[in-house]
């Protein structure tokens, strides 16, 4: 089967007046359709740079990114991106927050010229797929948002403001905002790191289950090894700066140990943890 996402020989450097920093060097990997792919690495190994490249916030200096075999720039695929913090906009209600992506997409549909040529219109990161039905405010998309809010236990908070929600609920609202655009690939940039430990376990469990039931292809970045093992189908280990692929680890808990909290209790968990730990340690001692 053709991989959903192919990354070939990707390199990227940051340029400043004081010099150049190589963030990523020769990164290659594939992500299969419907797979939960996790990238771990020591801090400063270019994890976030990699996600920015994947979702088009940055353009690669070298190498290619293919989605369904088509270069990312030309691909119509929608990529959803979840940031470290939820970034719900305080002045909007929850419903209006989760519909932000649709709102932006609609405004671009209504005035397609706004995307090109004008002073403000930088190329948008997510190409709009023309096959989809046009969304108008108040049509089915709003109903499906309400259905999602109900499914994820936020219906009562539709008209609440973000400050009235707990950290976990806010993160779920952020997930709905991302899923509302029906992304082909979900990129998660340490989406749980800003939460306290207990909430973090719960939200991680919640969100990874949601993603798995929806059979979304997801790429998660984290520095938390237990978290990585508890959700991943495969784990990519990056070396410290400049980031290179150290190894890719298959994680298999058997068919009936899906949920992250359950995985944490499985006997294989400790073995995977030690293996991952060793890979990361190896990197440190080789420096």
């Amino acid at each position, binding site marked *: 089967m053709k991989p959903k996402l192919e990354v070939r020989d990707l390199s990227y450097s940051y340029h400043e007046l004081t010099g150049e920093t190589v963030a990523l060097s020769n990164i290659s990997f594939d992500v299969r359709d419907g797979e939960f792919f996790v990238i771990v690495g020591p801090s400063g190994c270019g994890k976030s740079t990699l996600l920015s490249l994947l979702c088009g916030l940055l353009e690669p200096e070298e190498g290619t990114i293919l989605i369904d075999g088509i270069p990312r720039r030309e691909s119509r695929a929608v990529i959803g991106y979840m*940031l*470290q913090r939820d*970034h719900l906009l305080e*002045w909007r209600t929850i419903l209006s927050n989760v519909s932000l992506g649709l709102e932006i997409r609609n405004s671009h549909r209504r005035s397609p010229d706004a995307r090109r040529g004008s002073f403000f*219109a930088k190329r*948008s990161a997510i190409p709009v797929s023309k096959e989809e039905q046009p969304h108008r405010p108040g049509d089915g998309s709003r109903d499906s948002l309400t259905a999602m809010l109900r499914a994820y236990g936020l219906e009562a908070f539709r008209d609440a403001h973000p400050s009235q*929600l707990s950290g976990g609920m806010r993160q779920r609202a952020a997930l709905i905002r991302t899923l509302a655009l029906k992304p082909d690939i979900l990129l998660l940039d340490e989406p749980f790191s800003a939460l306290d430990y*207990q909430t973090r376990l719960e939200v991680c469990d919640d969100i990874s289950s949601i993603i798995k039931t929806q059979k979304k292809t997801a790429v998660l970045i984290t520095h938390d090894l237990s978290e990585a093992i508890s959700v991943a189908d495969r784990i990519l280990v990056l070396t410290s700066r400049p980031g290179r692929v150290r190894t890719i680890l298959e994680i298999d808990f058997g068919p009936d140990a899906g949920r992250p909290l359950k995985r944490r209790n499985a006997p294989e968990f400790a073995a995977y943890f030690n293996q991952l730990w060793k890979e990361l340690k190896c990197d440190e001692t080789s420096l």
Partner: protein
Amino acid sequence: MKHPFDHTPAAAEKCFRGIRPGLGGSAGAARRNAGAGDLSQTASRCPSPRQLAYLEAEHRHRVQVRIIRAMILILFLALWELLSELGIIDSFIFSSPGRILACFLQMAADGSIFLHTGVTLLETLVSFLLTVVIAVAAAVLLWASRSLSEILEPYLVMLNSLPKSAMAPLLIVWLGNSIKTIIAAAVSVAVFGSILTLHTGFMQTDADKIRLITSLGGSRRDVLTKVLIPASVPLIISNMKVNVGLCLVGVIIGEFLSARAGLGYLIIYASQVFKMDLLVMSIVILCLVSTMLYQAISVLEKKAVR
């Protein structure tokens, strides 16, 4: 006056929203919302003796502040009146509350004071609105273009630190002895600082919020309308508070130099003909006008920031 207990219905409502049932939320959710509810719950139930004592003390403190505040004003006016009555200070030079009041009543009777106050108020409002519109538009432009902002920065800094009163005589020559000069003077006093403040504020917009909009497929225009402007409402309003005062300064400078009406004109006229009652009265009205304008924006601020 509002007693602390007046807040109870609102607090109870907030509390109700906090404990809405059937959310299926996590434990963290419940914990957090309970936190919001705690205060109001204690307030809506019968407060404990300690809480009552606290409210009582707080109430007493507020009353005290108000009384002393009023006393200072009354004592000051009484002393002033008394000293001039007794001839200890010369009321021809220092005026007196009674004479100021008489002057006001006389001008109120023929309506002239309302004309002068109205003119100053109108000029201030027009220049204030112009300043806000120009400053927001310019700050957005500077935000949108890094090159433009870097090119213009030293000029803006220079114009901002230039004492604008030095420009007023020039404006008279350019724009004539008219209301245009006054408004131009007022705008020039407020607008440059305002542009710089707003631009700095715009540049501090959370970079991740901009990434969010971009990741949702938005352009710079979306960043502007969905994040930058709404997030900057508090900044824009607090900047408006500064601007309204500065515009009033500009209007008075303008009226000093080129006007046939307005409080600034009255002040200059009164000093030239040595009518101290008129002069001091104009200043008192100016005090009231500036306080009123500031309060009006504070009301707007409360509405906008919720």
